[in-house]
């Protein structure tokens, strides 16, 4: 007793004791949960296993980026769902970033109207739950756009309906390789030209019209290759057949609504991060840049934003993660993402709650960790280098 009291009174040994107790408690509760799981599984006559993944899924999916039929396996269905999650996340992140940066900059503009409109926009958007955004956009699309028979017709090649947006689908034909090659060549040229111009400016102060030249090259070279190789692309046009449009590319309203809602919601947060980042840059930087005679746009893009990036990126990373995780709300409007396929229909058809949920969680973990890693890498590449 005395001995124990002495250990407890001694600060260091007390810390050790507490740590041991905490570890025991954590493992103990895990052990308890797992043993409970095992007994309950046994009581419910269930067994743990992933065999179901190779069985045929039996259900159809309306947006498949890879080959899939209802005879494909549950694993394949999960993969289709995973790709759909990716698709929304990637488009959502790109859109949200562009919108967020623009909004963040306007939010600080000298124009009273622009500043206040963005202020109210951001406040409104941020304070409405994301689920409502998603339902609202979906509701707007399916309730206000016309049905296929009365589709909005864009020159007989594209159609807008409440079942989605139909556009012609380009189909590559022989000879397309020349065009691909031309695109690669043009990009390589553009990169080198930009480097060259930078060097030239550093050495002589002379500025080359990089943007104009590169744009012209990027358009003209592939276009030329396209013509020379005999237009090796044909288009498949959507046509109304019976109930729906057939052929062409089809953007589902669920995809559009989800991507838009996620982008708009997240953009409001990103805008605030951007604003914070810009405000974190000492105003002397702006004044110095202006004193050098740089135009406002260049002050922003050459002086302010590159420095603000360091402040913006860490919170931006968590916004990207939020967007990706929020995309799991897809189920509310029936977008077939990972949660709707593996964590939804598959779970229900096979009754493997624990197994499917573990897989879904694992996959989200992998996606999130990849985003974090990529952003951390980017963050360290723009970090201040101590000299």
């Amino acid at each position, binding site marked *: 007793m005395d001995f124990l009291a002495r250990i407890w009174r001694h600060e260091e040994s007390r810390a050790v004791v507490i740590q041991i107790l905490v570890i025991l408690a954590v493992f103990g509760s895990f052990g308890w949960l797992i043993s409970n799981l095992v007994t309950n599984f046994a009581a419910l006559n269930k067994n743990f296993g992933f065999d179901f993944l190779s069985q045929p899924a039996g259900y159809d999916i309306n947006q498949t980026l890879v080959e899939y039929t209802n005879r494909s396996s549950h694993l394949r269905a999960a993969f289709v769902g995973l790709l759909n999650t990716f698709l929304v996340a990637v488009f959502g992140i790109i859109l949200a970033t562009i919108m967020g940066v623009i909004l963040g900059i306007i939010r600080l503009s000298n124009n009273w109207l622009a500043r206040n409109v963005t202020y109210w926009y951001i406040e409104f958007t941020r304070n409405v739950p994301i689920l409502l955004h998603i339902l609202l956009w979906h509701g707007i699309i399916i309730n206000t756009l016309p049905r296929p028979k009365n589709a909005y017709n864009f020159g007989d090649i594209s159609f807008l309906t409440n079942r989605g947006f139909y556009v012609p689908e380009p189909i590559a034909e022989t000879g397309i390789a020349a065009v691909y090659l031309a695109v690669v060549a043009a990009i390589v040229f553009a990169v080198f030209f930009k480097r060259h111009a930078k060097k030239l400016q550093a050495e002589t102060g002379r500025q080359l019209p990089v943007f104009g030249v590169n744009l012209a090259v990027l358009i003209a070279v592939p276009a030329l290759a396209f013509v020379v190789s005999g237009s090796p692309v044909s288009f498949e046009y959507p046509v109304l057949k019976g109930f*729906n449009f057939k052929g062409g590319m089809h953007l589902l309203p669920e995809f559009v609504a989800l991507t838009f809602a996620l982008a708009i919601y997240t953009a409001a947060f990103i805008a605030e991060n951007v604003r914070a980042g810009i405000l974190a840059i000492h105003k002397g930087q702006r004044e110095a840049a202006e004193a050098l005679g740089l135009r406002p746009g260049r002050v922003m893009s050459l002086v302010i934003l590159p420095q603000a990036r360091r402040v913006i990126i860490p919170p931006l990373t968590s916004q990207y993660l939020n967007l990706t995780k929020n995309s799991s709300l897809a189920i509310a409007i029936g977008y077939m993402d990972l949660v709707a396929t593996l964590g939804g229909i598959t779970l229900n058809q096979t009754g493997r709650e624990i197994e499917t949920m573990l897989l879904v969680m694992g996959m989200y973990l992998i996606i999130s960790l990849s985003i974090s890693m990529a952003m951390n890498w980017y963050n360290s590449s723009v970090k201040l280098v101590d000299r």
Partner: protein
Amino acid sequence: MKKILIAMAGLAGVVAATSANAGTLEDVRDRGHLNCVVNTGLTGFASPDDAGNWTGFDVEFCRAVAAAVLGDASKVEFVTATGKTRFTKLAAGEGEILSRNTTWTFSRDVDLAQTFIGVNYYDGQAFMVPAALGVSSASELDGASVCIQTGTTTELNLAEYFSSNGMSYEPVPIETNAEARESYLAGRCDVYTTDGSGLAATRATFDAPDAHVILPEIVSKEPLGPVVREGDDNWADIVSWTLKAMMAGEELGITSANAAQLGAQVNDNPEINRLLGVDPLQGAEQAGLSSDWALNILSQVGNYAESFERNLTPLGLSRGMNALARDGGLHYIPPIK
């Protein structure tokens, strides 16, 4: 996220709850009320009325069980579940009965480890389309967009029906019947498919029910019935015989109006006497039931026909397969002895 949370909560329930299999009857009696897992809202089967009271065919079955085991049909609390969450909720102990248009299938019975205690409605999957489409048969649906409720038997039937007929379709998956109704009316899909009874119930809530037709094809067998957790045979027996008692009530001419009177006298028909506790029913006591268990069901809720006519007849559903065997239907009741 919300759905994940629900699923996780269910999981946590499965993980954390210690085995709650035996002794369901005692649990219910100790608690003083029954927990019953029902629909999120399907007129005629389970939906809250204006005053917030749950009504419907599936709801009345829960009340009948409460009457049998607690003597009071009002001692029920309702837990809602979508097609997807229902089995998890039942398994996690959120209710003692799942009474939610649930189709009895092999894998649900065997693989999901549920106990189906009988069929209270013989149904089949059908298709509903706006009359304006001019479609008169499901075989004309090639290329259509079809709204389906996820987590049901219907999505597999649909896939099978269209591929076996060489037709294509766009599946539009939806979580609840309310959302499906909205999407269908907005024209997001041309067709809504689910159990025929569900279609009739949904159509009854439209502003213009006549503008929609239910196509004649029935593409599956959907025997719907209440479900309990596997492992408590006594509880399964009680729930199962509650259903049989309601049907026997119809067969024997016992209604909510005359049950009390018939239960207080000696009747010519010995089966009535055993059912209403006038004469002893061998085994009731061992099962933990009082002698007036069936009397309570029939006087407080009524017999099968009464429940059907109260809830389903107004939807335009006829007895058909759901008549008693003696009237040419499929409900055949084992003897009460």
